[in-house]
C-alpha cells in the first residue's frame, strides 16, 4: 500500500531553480554520464582533478527532473576540495539527505548522479592505467543502478520497435 508522491523539499526546488556548478567544464580532467534520454534522466558530471587527486572543480549538465538537477548540484558542491578516495565514498544516501530527502519514487535520481560520479572516478584512473586498491573491482550499487536504468530503457525501446 505505497502512498504515491512525497513532494519535493524546499531545497530541491531551490536548487532546481538556481543550480550550482552548472554547465560543461572546458578544462575538465575527466567526465562521465549516467542515464539516457530514453530513461527521461541523463546526467553528465565533469571533474577537474589536480595532481594530488584533489577535485578542484566539478560541474554537471542534466536532462531530467527537478530531483535529478538538485542532487547533481549538491554532489558537485560536496566533492569540491576532496581527494578522490574520499569522493568515492560519497553514497546516494548522503546526497539524498543533503537535498532534504527524496520522495521514494525519486530515489533513483539521487542514485544516478552518484553513479555518474563513480564512473568519472573510474575513468580517471583507467586513463592513467591505475588500479587503486580502495576501489572495488565490481560495480557498486550506484553504478549498477545507473546501468540497470540504461538497460531497461534500451530494452523497452527495442520492444516498442518490434511491435
Amino acid at each position, binding site marked *: 500500500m505505497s502512498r504515491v508522491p512525497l*513532494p519535493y523539499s*524546499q531545497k530541491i526546488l531551490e536548487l532546481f531553480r538556481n543550480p550550482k556548478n*552548472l554547465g560543461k567544464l572546458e578544462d575538465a580532467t575527466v567526465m562521465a554520464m549516467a542515464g539516457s534520454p530514453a*530513461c527521461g534522466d541523463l546526467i553528465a558530471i565533469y571533474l577537474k582533478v589536480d595532481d594530488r587527486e584533489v577535485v578542484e572543480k566539478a560541474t554537471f549538465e542534466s536532462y*531530467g527532473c527537478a530531483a*535529478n538537477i538538485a542532487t547533481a548540484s549538491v554532489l558537485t558542491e560536496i566533492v569540491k576540495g576532496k581527494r578522490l578516495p574520499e569522493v568515492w565514498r560519497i553514497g546516494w544516501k548522503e546526497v539524498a539527505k543533503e537535498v532534504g530527502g527524496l520522495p521514494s519514487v525519486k530515489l533513483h535520481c539521487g542514485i544516478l548522479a552518484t553513479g555518474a560520479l563513480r564512473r568519472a572516478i573510474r575513468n580517471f584512473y583507467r586513463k592513467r592505467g591505475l588500479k587503486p586498491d580502495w576501489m572495488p573491482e565490481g560495480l557498486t550499487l550506484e553504478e549498477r543502478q545507473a546501468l540497470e536504468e540504461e538497460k531497461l530503457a534500451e530494452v523497452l*525501446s527495442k520492444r516498442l520497435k518490434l511491435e
Partner: protein
Amino acid sequence: MNVLMNVRELIKAHGDIEREVYLDFENSGPVLPEVIEAMLPYLRERGYGNPTITHKPGWEAYEAIMEASEEIAGYIKASSFEELHFTHSDTEANNIALLGGFSANRKLGRRVVISKIEPLSILFPAQMMRKNGVEVVEVPVNNEGFVLENELLKAVDDETVIVSIGLVNHEIGTIQPIKELVEVVKERNPCTLFHTDASDAYGRIPFDVRELGVDMATLCSYKIQGPRDIGALYVREGVKIDRILEGPLGTESLWPGLENVPGIVGFQMASRLAFENLHEKARRLKGFRDMLITEILEKIPETILNGPRGDRRAPDNVNISFLRCEGEALTIELSLRGVYVSSGSACTRRLLQPSHVLLAIGRKYEEAHGSVLMKLSSKHGFEDIQYVLKVLPQAVGRLRSISPF
C-alpha cells in the same frame, strides 16, 4: 509532518505570479461559479434527504436527480433518462462498463478488445481482467491515434463480449470515427457490446449516442468544470450490467449508497453551460488551440505535435513534445511562472514508463518524456494564450541550456 512542510514551501516558492493560466483540465480544474451557485442550495437546505425515503427532503432529492438525469440524457440524445446512471467518477464508470458489463454478459464469450490508447481507467481494469483469465486484445493505432480498422476487425471474434474505444483521446485529442468502428464491430459480431469513454468529448464536441450506435458511454463532470466525484454511464436500454459493489440501493441501480445530490446538480449545471453555444465555443477554442500549436512549432525548435490537426482533433487539446526537455522539470518550470500543464513524462506520471498513448503513436521515449499536454477552457482569453507563448520559450530554453545533449 515533513511532507506537509515540504509542500507548503513549494507553494510559497511561487511568490507573486504575473498571471496564472490553468491548462490542466485533463486532470481536474476549478468548478465554475454558476455550478457552485447551483449546488449551494442542495448542500444547505434543499434535497438534503435520501431520495429513497418518503419525506419532503427525500422527495426533493429525488426530484433533483430525475431532473438532472433527464437534462443530461437529452444532451447525448439518449432515448430516456432511465439510460443514464450516475457514478462517482469517470474512472468508476469505466470500471463498471468493463467489469460489470463483462460479468453480466460472460456467456457471450471471453474476450475484451480495447485500443492501445485508452486511459488508465480502461487499461488497468482490462489488465486486471487479463490476470483473471479474460482474453484482452489491444488494437494498435496509426501515428495520429486513429484505430486501425483492419486490426480491429481481426481482434473481434465470436467470443468478444465488449469493445471499448474512447470517443476523444484524453491525451492527444484524436476524435475517433466511433460510428464507423461500431459498424465494423457489429458487422463482425452483433452481440458484442460497444463502450466508448466519452469523458473528453462530452461538452466539447456534440455527439448522439443513438447515432453512434454505442451500447455504453462514460461521461465526466470535472473535465467540464463541474464538481469532482460525479460521472455517469449511459447504458442503452436492454443492455445488462452487474454491480461491482453491494449495499443499500438508491434510485441509481449501478452503484449502492447515498446519491451525491449536490454533485449531480452541479454536473447538470456544468453540462448546461458546456452545451450552451457549443459550436461557437468550439470554434473559439480551435482558434486558440491552433494559435498555440502554430506559434510553438514555429518559434521553438525541436518540437513535435502529438495527435492530428484540424477537425479531427478535439478543440481544446494541445499536446507537444519538446526534445531535450524532461517533462516533469518543464511542468515545474512552468508552474513557477503561473502556467499549469501536465506531461506524459514517466516522472510526472509516477509510473516507470512515459505515456503509453505517445508510445502507441510511435513517439520515441525521449519524445514522450518531453511532452506537454495543455487543455483549454472556454474561459481562456487571448491574453492567456499570449502569456503562455511568452513564458514557454523561457522555460524550455532554461532547461535545454542545462541539458548535456
